[in-house]
């Protein structure tokens, strides 16, 4: 089971700069997002090669040989250490079973240059958080702040537009790879949901009327509910922000008390919390 390197270009909604040297340091592996449901292509995660991948997720990977590797070895391919746990096609990989997976970078004559390891985990929980295009933005006071990945405050003002995204978790780690999500407003008269593309992990919420509102996001058999209280009066919609480390206006850590999430996991009618597999 071998794949020719460089079969996939940049796709998806991220910049996909997740590149990292392999275990031996002879090749640099590059993660590629294959759709718009991959957390790895969000600004907070794109600086490192993912290690934990969601079961049922899709991604692409290629590699470049490090400078010190002789030119005569430059052509190469990727092979899976084990076909169990991952399916490879000519344009992407798809995880099919939990466990350890290793991708081995080979030279044209079959010698091992380097390898990268991944752990595939079931999605057991989803979190809905603030989305962003850039990790840090400048606020009105000139501070570099970020809402990326921060919990969405329960109380929001009517008329606000919220950019949110969903993050899949398995154990304590966020899981990477492209998954298909469905978004739904349980109170469409109070909040509308619009998703760019099909199955994406990002959504725009428009808060239309005062009152309690709920948004649900699902992947496989796991779902998460975001409960909001939409108020008619003026409310500070900025929510919790983190400032860039080293900034002279670093936030007070005690402010994090405001970041309590208002989402709750609905593990389905069985209440087991298990995904039952995302195929």
């Amino acid at each position, binding site marked *: 089971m071998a794949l020719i390197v460089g079969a996939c270009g940049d796709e998806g909604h991220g910049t996909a700069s997740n590149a990292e040297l392999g*275990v*031996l340091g*002879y090749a640099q592996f590059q993660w590629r997002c294959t759709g718009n449901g991959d957390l790895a292509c969000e600004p907070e995660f794109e600086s490192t090669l993912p290690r934990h991948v969601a079961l049922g997720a899709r991604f692409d990977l290629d590699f470049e040989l490090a400078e010190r*590797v002789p030119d005569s*070895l430059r052509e190469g391919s990727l092979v899976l*250490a*084990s*076909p*169990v*746990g991952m399916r490879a096609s000519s344009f992407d990989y798809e995880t099919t079973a939990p*466990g*350890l*997976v*290793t991708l*081995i970078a*080979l*030279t044209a004559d*079959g*010698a*091992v*240059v380097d*390898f990268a*390891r991944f*752990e595939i985990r079931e999605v057991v929980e989803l979190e809905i958080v603030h989305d962003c295009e850039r990790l840090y933005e400048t606020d009105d006071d000139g501070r570099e702040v970020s809402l990326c990945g921060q919990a969405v405050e329960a109380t929001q003002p009517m008329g606000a537009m919220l950019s949110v995204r969903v993050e899949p978790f398995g154990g304590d780690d966020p899981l990477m790879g492209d998954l298909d999500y469905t978004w739904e407003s349980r109170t469409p008269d109070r909040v509308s949901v619009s998703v760019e593309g099909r199955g994406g992990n990002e959504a725009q919420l428009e808060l239309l009327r005062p009152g309690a509102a709920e948004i649900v996001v699902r992947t496989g058999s796991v779902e998460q509910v975001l409960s909001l209280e939409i108020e008619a009066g003026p409310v500070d919609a900025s929510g919790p922000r983190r400032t860039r480390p080293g900034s002279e206006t670093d936030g007070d850590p005690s402010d994090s008390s405001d970041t309590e999430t208002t989402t709750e996991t609905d593990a389905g009618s069985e209440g087991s919390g298990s995904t039952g597999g995302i195929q």
Partner: protein
Amino acid sequence: MNIRMHIRMHIRTWMAAWLTVAAAGCQEAQYQAVKLRMIAGDVEAQVERGAVFVPRGGVLMVDVVPESTSDSPDYKGWEMLELDSTQPGVAQVRPAIVRDAWVVNGVQVGSARLDVTIDGQHVDSIDVDVEEVDR
């Protein structure tokens, strides 16, 4: 002993000594085993004398050092060292770009053997166990 006979004997002695040295230099090396040293791999991977353990889906990179018999020249490195798996469906082995380094990867749970040959001569066999590892 005339001078001619003396020169002839001297040449014979010199040639005998030269042939002895040349023969020793060309003596075919005899290997009794190979020693494995783990270079990299999964934390669960292990190398023991004559056996290796690799998790399914994991890898183990080893340095392979042939050990010659006591009366044989040492391994020089220009010999043709090869490792072959008896069960590629269980464990695969490939050379690495680093000299005398080999990478074993666990494909399926089970047992296999790596046959080591040097210049076509079987030198050693290494047992490989591939097991599922819970993390």
